[in-house]
């Protein structure tokens, strides 16, 4: 039986973005029910028990995050909605915000009720003009319908949602970078601890949640935990620290596929299924060479590399849940934005593009990331101009390995994400790099031989 979408159920329905249309589909009933029958703590407990893990990239259990807030905090608590969806090829939040903003807003309202926040800051990246306008209209409708403001539905609960438009930087999607940017400063990620749940926006306890996570909150409160847990991947019983990956997930397909699309399927679909069944296969009848399983920063999967102990299966068959990409050396599921690279594309060009992105987006605060991303760009630029040296590959891996929050050399995770694609690409496609270095072939996309310093 094919999976019936839930998060995307209302997309492209008439009036899908309007309050009237959303209410006709049972919208805000879960919120009204929660206000009437449930204590805030009950909502927290339910979300925690549902096993919902954050959809923003790191996969941190959402309910657990909420419990980190100080108990009985006298001052304000804030919710920040992270809609700075800047990971390349990721657009699942955008579809939710543009086509079904009320589903997200209801999630925000439920979350705010749960964490006793009276103010939510909705941080929308600058480039998402349509999303911003659609949300603006939706929020206006809610105020008009008295679903936002003071004493909502006579329950005594007050809530304001402030829409904030970012100024266009990848780092604003890092939760503390987002908070700094929201406060009007340069989006330099903060040192943790203190974590935002203790001291966040405007030095108050703050929860930062992703748009899709909040849409899931709406559905959990609407359909219950049993429904949520019936979908997806249960925890591995052999690993007590595995939280599993329950629930529906939005996957976005991009790159060299016939049909780039955002689909909702249960967590844990394999890359092969996703590309072949939902994306219409690799474009122009070609074969896939590499796949990026969840946004550029997660690294690459070598489609032809056999999986150990699974006969005939390759890395193409890994499940896209929170553990699958990690099992083949990728950083994780990330934003579940799957980018397919066909067999006629040079990995050197791909890698150069990746390095260009991260060196452009590094905030420049920590030395290893600031200089490391720039150095990797200069090296890959030289590689694609046919001037590579064999030792360059080892330098790239060395730099990729040493920058990031995991080795402990930076404040935030941007440079983990900058290093991962570099080292996975070179480790998995070393032969291709070495052949290119040996032949001295220039990339067909390399422009004039402008030196790297000119970037």
């Amino acid at each position: 039986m094919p999976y019936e979408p839930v998060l995307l159920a209302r997309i492209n329905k008439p009036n899908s973005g309007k309050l009237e249309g959303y209410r006709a589909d049972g919208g805000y009933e879960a919120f009204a029910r929660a206000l009437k029958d449930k204590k805030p703590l009950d909502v927290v407990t339910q979300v925690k028990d549902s096993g919902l893990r954050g959809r923003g990239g790191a996969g941190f259990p959402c309910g657990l995050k909420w419990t980190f807030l100080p108990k009985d905090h006298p001052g304000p608590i804030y919710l920040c909605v992270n809609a700075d969806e800047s990971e390349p090829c990721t657009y699942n939040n955008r579809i939710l915000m543009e086509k079904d903003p009320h589903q997200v807003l209801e999630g925000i309202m439920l979350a705010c009720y749960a964490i006793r926040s009276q103010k939510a800051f909705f941080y929308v990246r600058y480039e998402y003009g349509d999303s911003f306008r659609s949300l603006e209209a939706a929020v206006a409708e809610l105020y008009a319908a008295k679903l936002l403001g003071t004493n909502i539905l006579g329950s005594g609960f007050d809530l304001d949602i402030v829409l904030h438009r970012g100024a266009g930087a990848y780092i604003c999607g890092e939760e503390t970078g987002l908070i700094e940017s929201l406060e009007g400063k340069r989006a330099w990620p903060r040192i943790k601890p203190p974590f935002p749940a203790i001291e966040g926006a405007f030095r108050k306890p703050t929860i930062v949640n992703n748009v899709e996570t909040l849409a899931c909150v709406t559905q959990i409160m609407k359909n219950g935990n049993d429904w949520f847990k019936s979908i997806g991947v249960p925890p591995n019983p052999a690993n007590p620290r595995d939280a599993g990956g329950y629930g529906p997930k939005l996957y976005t397909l991009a790159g060299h596929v016939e049909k780039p699309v955002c689909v909702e399927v249960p967590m844990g679909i394999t890359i092969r299924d996703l590309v072949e069944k939902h994306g219409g296969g690799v474009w122009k009848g070609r074969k896939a060479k590499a796949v990026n399983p969840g946004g550029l920063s997660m690294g690459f999967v070598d489609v032809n590399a056999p999986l150990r102990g699974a006969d005939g299966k390759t890395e193409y068959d890994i499940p896209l849940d929170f553990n699958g990409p990690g099992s083949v050396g990728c950083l994780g599921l990330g934003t579940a934005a799957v980018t397919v690279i066909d067999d006629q594309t040079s990995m050197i060009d791909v890698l150069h593009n990746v390095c260009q992105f991260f060196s452009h987006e590094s905030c420049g605060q920590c030395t290893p990331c600031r200089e490391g991303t720039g150095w990797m760009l200069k090296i890959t630029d030289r590689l694609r101009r046919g001037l590579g040296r064999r030792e360059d590959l080892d330098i790239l891996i060395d730099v990729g390995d040493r920058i990031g929050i995991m080795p402990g050399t930076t404040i935030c995770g941007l440079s983990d994400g900058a290093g991962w694609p570099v080292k996975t690409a070179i480790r998995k496609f070393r032969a291709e790099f070495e052949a290119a270095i040996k032949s001295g072939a220039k990339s067909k996309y390399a422009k004039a031989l402008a030196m790297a310093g000119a970037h």
Partner: protein
Amino acid sequence: MPTVYVNDKPVEIGTAKLNCVQAAELAGAFLPHYCWHEALSVVASCRMCLVEMGDLKDGKVTMQPKVLPGCQTPVKDGTVIVTGDYDKRDRALPVLPYDPAYTKTAPLGARAKKAQADTLEGLLINHPLDCPVCDKAGECKLQDFSYKYGRSESRMVDLKNTPANKPGLSSKITLFTDRCIMCTRCVRFTREISGTAELQVVGRGHHEEIDTFPGRPLENKLAGNVVDLCPVGALGSKDFLYKQRVWYLKTTDGVCNGCSTGCSTYVDTNKDIVYRLRARYNPKAQGHFMCDDGRYGYHHANSGERFVRPVVKTEGRFKPVPWSVLLPQLKLDFQTAANQNAMSTVAVLSPFLTVEEAFLLGSYFKSLSPHIRLVLGPVPVIGADDKYPKNVKGESIEPVKFTIRAEKAPNRVGVEEVLKALQGEVIPFAKVTGEALAALWFAGGYPNPAHLDALVPPAWKTPALLVAQDLLPTVVTASAKYILPATTGFEKDGTFVNHAGYAQTFGRSARPPVEVRSELQLAYDLLDRKGLAQAANVRKELAAKVAYFS
């Protein structure tokens, strides 16, 4: 007692709240750092102070799997710090019970050492390595740490970023943009200490630069401190630029004579010429910093206008006179004046004298006659105390972190105490300007003659016998019979007492011009004292006689 272990060495931290850099310092280990500064907020971005950390609990050390920035990580009882210098530890100390799984993958300290070397490799990637033409060379932290913690060769073969220099950053400071390592100390200084916030970071990633907003250059009275704060040669003081290689400079501990705050300074000289003043950390005086008035306020010492030999007015013109002739004449003149009209004989002791000089000169005049009055020299007060940080409107805000005082003299309190001890009262200069005096000895030493000129009333009646000792021409020296050259605050040693009654002794950093006798030497000569004129001996004498200085 809470104990922290640094490279196996236990060190008790008491109740102090310390980070790893400070704890390591207590244990005698140095953690290199760029961005961290005691007076500024912690950003933990340079990643030079990376350490391995663990916890000693139940007889076992649990190490964290990654390196941590020492500046940002507080220590508590049982914290174990392993620095990159672990292999240089004191091997006599017992080794802590480290987790064997941790030491198996890499030896202790190797992770931190590699991380620090990696950071330095990163810092040098876009650094021009133009040490031969860089003013900072010789006192540059990037040089020092690269030598000590870095790799000897660069693996970088690509072109470096070459951002344009910014000589227009400030009238007094220039920015060599390419040398900058983005520690952001200067930016934080202008935001947190001066509050003027002229500096900012522009751009992203490896194209980041320090810059000002167009039309708002770095102009505030504390701006010079950013040059001291800069660990590399990026921010250069135009005043000092290309004047000296720092290894030729001799550094002496000094005290600024610009105002009554009495900032502790380093005086950098070469061959008796003062080239540079820098702030010397002294929590009891001013803290870490100093103001630009003081920093650039040494030029009077090198001025061509200075009096460099004693002169006497004969037939309306000043003519040089040798000390051997002058001294007996002066003694005779003042002895005569004291004998004939002691009530009308006055000695002015300026607030620029050290307490030792004031004490000996005062003693001399009191020895001639107890009726000779000792007068406190004019104390320049310009405007009001200038407090920092400031807000956007230029108003000072609490808590005050630095004060430039309105009283532009270093030792009013000290001289006053000497005067109180010698004659029981302090007579201000204004009280004697109306009198027709028979004889006046004016021991000045005003670095800024305009300050003194403003305080001498135009109707001032020139005394019959006026001896003026000063650095530069003033209205007082113009009408003097004898002009004696004075020494600057760099050319003598002694003690200043600041506004809060804090006495600071400083050393002589330069010899005065050859024919100049210091005030202390002059007092020795006048008193017919034998032996070397040494401030330390006078200080002992003073301490024995005057309770305030004991």
